[in-house]
């Protein structure tokens, strides 16, 4: 109690120095809180784009499909598996996958065919909301297909164009049919953009002569669920299943997210280094100015530990003030950045790793995006005050009292 009281009053002895220190800490913390939240917002957006749009949080395929993606390697009874997955509290949708050739007029290109269970798919991906022109698939229009953005461009296909698809059916027959372009997607991701044709499930089955089975089930889990746990649970539903989380499916994205989070800490360290130097300097000055006082204190029986904590508490109080003010001042900025955000659409949006990015950069602020910068600040202040505090604690009393 006595230490706290002394420390608090000591801050006011050189009020301007304390104010400068607190202001610098506050500003650095404010910047770091907003920066961390903005980066987190970008990461979440990237995951949303990649995961929500197309990939899904988890994918289930028949064992071996990933190494040898043949039309015949299917999950035999997708309906039963869907029931099982839904029983775990997750949402899931089957997709059918194949390859072929697409042609519009004189233009042709190799295409990836994706058969979609339209209704279910809307519960696990958001691709149906990413149309640039026209409309998404409709089970009532089995001739209607949707093309990836760049595929449509290279085929010169507009909404309403006739698309000829050529492939080989599951029974070995030649599969060919004419479809109508219902919609063209906006940017989704490299693979989809460049070569994918989406068909309804029924159209796919008819074209490819595949009456049963599904190649892939996309799974969505409730927010905050442990993906690895979900993966294990789904795998346990039956033999011959291969389940992958998006982190496994998109390892580059996953590593990039981890390293970006690491980078935040490096940036925080650098920003706070300036603060640490300021604290170090201010506290050293404070210790030197009061050296006689420490001499008297130690002579009359204040132990080194008490003197050490006095200096440490003085810095802690400053850090505490800075934390309070910094977080308070960050609140309105956080509210604005998370609701309104920064318009980057004017810059043509952002593209990263072949995925189209957001038009608006919004921050995402959670307890951990605020806590992180606060904890690193405290760590740096603690490091910076170590030397001045030790210096004060170790002063031999007579030498200190002799000091001028």
């Amino acid at each position: 109690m006595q230490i706290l009281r002394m420390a608090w009053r000591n801050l006011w002895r050189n009020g301007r120095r304390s104010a400068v220190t607190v202001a610098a800490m506050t500003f650095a913390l404010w910047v770091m809180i907003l920066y961390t939240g903005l980066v987190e917002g970008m990461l979440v957006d990237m995951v949303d784009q990649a995961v929500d749009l197309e990939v899904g949080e988890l994918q289930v395929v028949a064992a071996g499909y990933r190494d040898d993606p043949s039309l015949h390697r299917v999950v035999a009874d997708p309906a039963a598996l869907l029931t099982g997955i839904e029983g775990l509290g997750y949402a899931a949708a089957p997709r059918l996958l194949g390859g072929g050739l697409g042609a519009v007029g004189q233009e042709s290109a190799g295409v990836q065919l994706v058969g979609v269970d339209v209704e279910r798919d809307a519960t696990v991906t958001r691709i149906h909301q990413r149309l640039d022109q026209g409309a998404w698939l409709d089970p009532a229009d089995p001739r209607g297909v949707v093309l990836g953005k760049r595929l449509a461009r290279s085929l010169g296909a507009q909404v309403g164009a006739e698309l000829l698809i050529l492939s080989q059916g599951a029974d070995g027959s030649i599969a060919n049919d004419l479809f109508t372009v219902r919609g063209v997607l906006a940017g989704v991701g490299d693979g989809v953009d460049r070569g994918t044709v989406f068909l309804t499930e029924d159209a796919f089955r008819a074209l490819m002569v595949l009456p049963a089975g599904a190649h892939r089930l996309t799974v969505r889990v409730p927010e905050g669920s442990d993906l690895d746990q979900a993966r294990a649970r789904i795998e346990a539903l039956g033999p011959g299943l291969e389940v992958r989380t998006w982190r496994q499916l998109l390892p580059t994205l996953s590593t990039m997210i981890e390293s970006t989070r690491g980078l935040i800490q490096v940036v925080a360290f650098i920003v706070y280094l300036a603060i640490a130097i300021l604290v170090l300097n201010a506290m050293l000055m404070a210790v030197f100015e009061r050296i006689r006082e420490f001499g008297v204190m130690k002579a009359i029986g204040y132990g080194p530990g008490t003197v050490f904590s006095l200096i440490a508490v003085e810095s802690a109080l400053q850090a505490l003030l800075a934390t309070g003010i910094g977080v308070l001042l960050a609140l309105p900025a956080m509210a604005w950045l998370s609701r309104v955000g920064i318009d980057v659409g004017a810059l043509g949006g952002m593209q990263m790793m072949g995925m189209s990015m957001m038009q608006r950069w919004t921050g995402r602020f959670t307890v951990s995006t605020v806590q992180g910068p606060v904890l690193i600040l405290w760590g740096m202040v603690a490091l910076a005050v170590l030397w001045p505090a030790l210096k004060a604690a170790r002063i031999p009393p007579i030498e200190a009292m002799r000091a001028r």
Partner: protein
Amino acid sequence: MSLLRFSSVTKVYTQGQVQVHALRGLDLQIEAGEFTALVGPSGSGKTTALNLAGALDHPSSGTVALEGRDLGGLSRRELSHLRRDRIGFVFQAYNLIPVLTAYENAESVLALQGVPEGQRRERVLALFQELGLGGLEHRRPDQLSGGQQQRVAIARAIAARPAIVLADEPTANVDSETAEKLLDLMQRLNQERGVTFLFSTHDARVVDHARRVVKLVDGRVAEDLRR
């Protein structure tokens, strides 16, 4: 057993190439209840002797013992506790912690000793009355005169009920009238409460108050008068 005992104590300061012999075989015993003035010309070793008695420094040779314990055998931590619990200090100036009020300064050592709040209040307020500091409890040191500051320092020193109060030129920074009053006060505390004082001075009038006067010359006892 003497309360404080110097036996053949020497103290050599090394300053660059020069060696200064501050004490050259000091033998001195202070008994409980004594009121002793340490006098002598400047540089005769008074401050050095008080620093050794106060466990603030180590002798170059010889022993200093307080209540029979050789200070040379104690760890830093034990010395710090010894100063807190058994020794009261009054320095020449800058005695008080500037951010604490007169009252808080006076109770600080008691707080370090872990004396409960109520007892601290009782003891310190009684002392403030006795030392004529009543009403000044909430003043900061810079709002007190030199004499008042020294009285607060005395209150702090004796509130903790030490075995001995060591005072190095406690009157050097106040005018002679104030000096006289401070000495009166110390004397009264000695007579009424039995507090043992060992203080240095080179003020002749202050010396008149002392029942025992020890004169140092060149780091040795040159005269030891009892009245």
